[in-house]
């Protein structure tokens, strides 16, 4: 909200951010990736975008399931649109099908006669990055896996920051026994080996998307709390806070209107790194087999497969490539943000 009120300082920061080319283009790329992943159903899907059949138009992507019989096929289960397309072409009755660029969904097993998955990349079969060990399209799994990972880490960020900022600034602002108490809590908390806790929990119950976020947030808030507490302590001693108090501003007004806006640079600079941290955490949990339940498309699971099937290079290299691109762009954005928010304009970071 505060950042939206474009005061000259903010405009200056944005300008500076834009001037850092590497970070800015990374930002554009990242936004593009996230936005397109939200419309992944239109790009990567086994359901057709448009089917024209006997004078009617169908849009299967956002419809419920169309059984094969609907299009003159002889089965009751979901239409295989790739076959339908071929069939319409052969019949040449004026019916047609438009498929998404990648005509596979992340769950279906595209298995072949006399060959065994994983299949190498093939443009003819439109498996642009090949398939995994049960014949699922890797690109499809990467795209949907990315969507899950990014939403996961953004939500996790929200939770972590929500708890961290409110508690941290309260600790820093009120100080005293309240601060002392939560310091001890944090010290104890931070000694709980969180990876083991997750492993234990997920070996008993398979965590769903939201429970996994909750579990991770349970341990993730500590870092932010510590930082914000320190920054608040510093800000609290400044004259403007004193002035605000002298004018009779309430505690909450001082915290939310004065202190937090002045700590925003800290909050914002940490954010991109927290996002990449979230992605890595989810990926590593999935890699170890303690993450989201199969068959959820996940990068960690692909990484695991890449490790087992070393000789099927396309599995490992696709997922490592995708991870590298994502993490590098996020990091570049983070760097640029940090630099843009840095009051000392001409400093360099190593």
């Amino acid at each position, binding site marked *: 909200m505060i950042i939206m009120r474009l005061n000259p300082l903010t405009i200056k920061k944005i300008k500076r951010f834009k001037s850092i080319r590497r970070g800015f283009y990374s930002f554009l790329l990242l936004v593009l990736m996230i936005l397109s992943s939200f419309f992944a159903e239109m790009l990567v899907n086994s359901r057709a975008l448009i089917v024209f059949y006997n004078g009617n138009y169908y849009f299967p992507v956002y419809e419920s399931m169309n059984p094969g019989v609907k299009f003159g096929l002889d089965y*009751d*289960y979901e239409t295989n649109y790739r076959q339908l397309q071929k069939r319409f072409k052969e019949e040449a009755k004026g019916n047609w099908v438009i498929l998404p660029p990648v005509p596979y969904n992340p769950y279906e097993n595209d298995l072949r006669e006399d060959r*065994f998955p994983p299949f190498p990349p093939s443009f003819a079969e439109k498996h642009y990055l090949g398939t995994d060990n049960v*014949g699922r399209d890797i690109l499809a799994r990467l795209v949907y896996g990315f969507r899950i990972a990014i939403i996961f880490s953004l939500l996790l960020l929200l939770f972590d920051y929500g708890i961290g900022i409110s508690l941290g600034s309260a600790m820093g602002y009120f100080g005293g026994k309240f601060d002392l108490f939560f310091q001890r809590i944090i010290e104890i908390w931070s000694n709980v080996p969180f990876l083991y806790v997750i492993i234990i929990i997920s*070996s*008993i119950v398979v965590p769903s998307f939201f429970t996994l976020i909750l579990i991770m947030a349970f341990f993730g808030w500590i870092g932010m709390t510590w930082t914000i507490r320190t920054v608040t302590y510093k800000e609290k001693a400044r004259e403007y806070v004193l002035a605000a108090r002298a004018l009779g501003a309430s505690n909450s007004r001082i915290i939310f209107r004065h202190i937090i806006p002045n700590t925003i640079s800290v909050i914002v600079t940490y954010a991109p790194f927290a996002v990449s941290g979230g992605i890595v955490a989810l990926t590593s949990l999935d890699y170890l087999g303690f993450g989201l339940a*199969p*068959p959820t498309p996940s990068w960690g699971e692909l990484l695991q497969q890449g490790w087992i099937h070393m*000789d099927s290079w396309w599995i490992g290299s696709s997922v490592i490539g995708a991870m590298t691109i994502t993490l590098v762009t996020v990091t570049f954005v983070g760097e640029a943000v940090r630099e843009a928010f840095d009051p000392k304009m001409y400093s360099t970071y190593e």
Partner: protein
Amino acid sequence: MKRLKAEFTNSLQSKNLQTIKPETRKREFRVNMLRMMIKTFVKFALVAGIFFLHVPSYAAAPELPKDIKWLTNDSDPVFASQEAKRGGTLHAAVMSFPMTFRVVGPDSNGSFRSAILDNHLSLIGIHPNTLNIIPELATYWAFGKDKKTMYFRLNKMARWSDGTPVTAGDFAYSLEFMRSKHIVAPWYNDYYTREIDRVIVFDDYTLAVVATKAEPDLYLKLGIAPTPAHYYGKLDDNFVRKYNWEIVPNTGPYQMSEFVKGKHIIFRRKNDWWGDELKYFKNRFNVEKVIFTVVRDMNMIWEYFKKGKEDEFGLTIPEYWHVKSKTPVIENGYVHKIWFFNDTQQSAMGLWLNQDREIFKDINVRYAFAHAMNVERVIEKVLRNDYFRLEHGFVGYGKYSNESIRARRFDLEKVGYYMRRAGWDRGADGIWGKNGNRFSVEVTYGSEAHTQRLVVLKEEAKKAGVELRLQNLDSTAAFKKFLEKKHDVAWMGWSTSFRPQFWEHFHSANAHKPQTNNITNTDDPEMDKLIDAYRNSLEEEERIKLSVEIQAKIHELGVFVPTFMVPYVRHAYWRWWRFPEIPGTKHSASLFDPFGSMAGGLFWFDEKIYHETKEAMKKGEKLRPVTIINETYKMKSITMKIE
């Protein structure tokens, strides 16, 4: 109860210890389950308080009944090769060092245990092909009229490894030992109290073992193993600590000679073993030395094997057989591959439907579920046609198996037929629905490696309008869930026993309550009647008839969808190892089992070929690659072609 014959089945299954199991995960899962089961029963026994105080095992001046008929067996075919030569060293890997060398008491239930136990022979053995009784420590045996007693006459040649003769007293001592509180083994305490009544010593070489109740297949229970009385003497509280790393005298062909904790264990062949000339032991147990080295990682073992530091490697997993074995040592012919079909009890692996779930109460829905599982496609496309369709839960039990049962195949029309008959309709999402319920069930499993199979089943089931939700838990957590009957569908396999066990899995006495093996909650009066009759019958013919009938009934109830079986063993081995013409037996679980008294130790080391191969390797000479496929004992129901 399932493992009441634990001791005996151990040798029957001849656990292949020297090698890393190809199906390690699956077996581990089963071993875990087994432990849990044993624990469960121990708990039961404690709770029920069934602990009798017993009459002393030594009865005074007993007399041998006059009217018993002594039997022996020297007419069954031998299965070892006359060409076998003595010598050489077998290098094998174990994934962890045993926690103790004791075979009873705390921490003794590790996988290495059977390497030690296999060298402790019993009174009698079972022929691995004919399944008739054959002599081990006893040369003659006889059945008592009461159907509870068996009489044995010991082989006077039988010696402990320290040279002391094996006498009837050692068997009486077994009972005392196994019932002792000092061994801290409640399961054995209980078993040797509740199942074996007493051992009667007539003279040093004649004895009788008496069961607590009349039972079919008595010889499986009464052919107990001796315990060296002269070695242990009187037991005390110190037992568990004192015997952790002691090498106990044994009666088998090998004895442990040295070990370095955490590193390796070496077994040496006894030079003048008393059993060398016995018909069924002759030309067996040929290697001079067996070295078990600890290697903690499967991939490392494979690498060691390729370097020649291990002699064999199990190749049962399709990936290893088809892909990883495309490696120079095999392509250059230094290492051979063998695929040997056996014909032994198959684990009941598959999907177990919980009938306490509302949806599975309707038999039509259960049938439809079975027809919605495209197991064939998984076998074809994921398992490379290497696994075979299990037709029912009791395959490989000889006459006790009902060979006419065929598992329900994937069939969309039948799914539709049964679902409509049950009053369900296909919903807008293609999944069957009725009164707001969808045909969506949770499939719980305990092995990450099986995900690959399940995702294919899931996608195929969707075509049939059935949604599977996969839940992968840690193997113990999964098994706990099954025992507590909290699953919709359990994906698991049971360990096998010598004869089919029905009561545990299908009798209503075990339904609707936690911690029993009836995970389908089968509760059918007719089934109960059949199972009770089977359990009470002492007539083999009748039991076979009932067993076949019960299996048909299980199929009819449709509570179990059988999936896969692996009726073979596969190995890669350095070419200087040789086998008999028929490399194994019907019941071989490994061709490189060095000790197993039933079917182990058939292979031998050929020194000439060893030097020849080393020479060729040095010169970089290529030899002919060899893959042996032996189908002598292949089950008749398998029609798939092997290439």
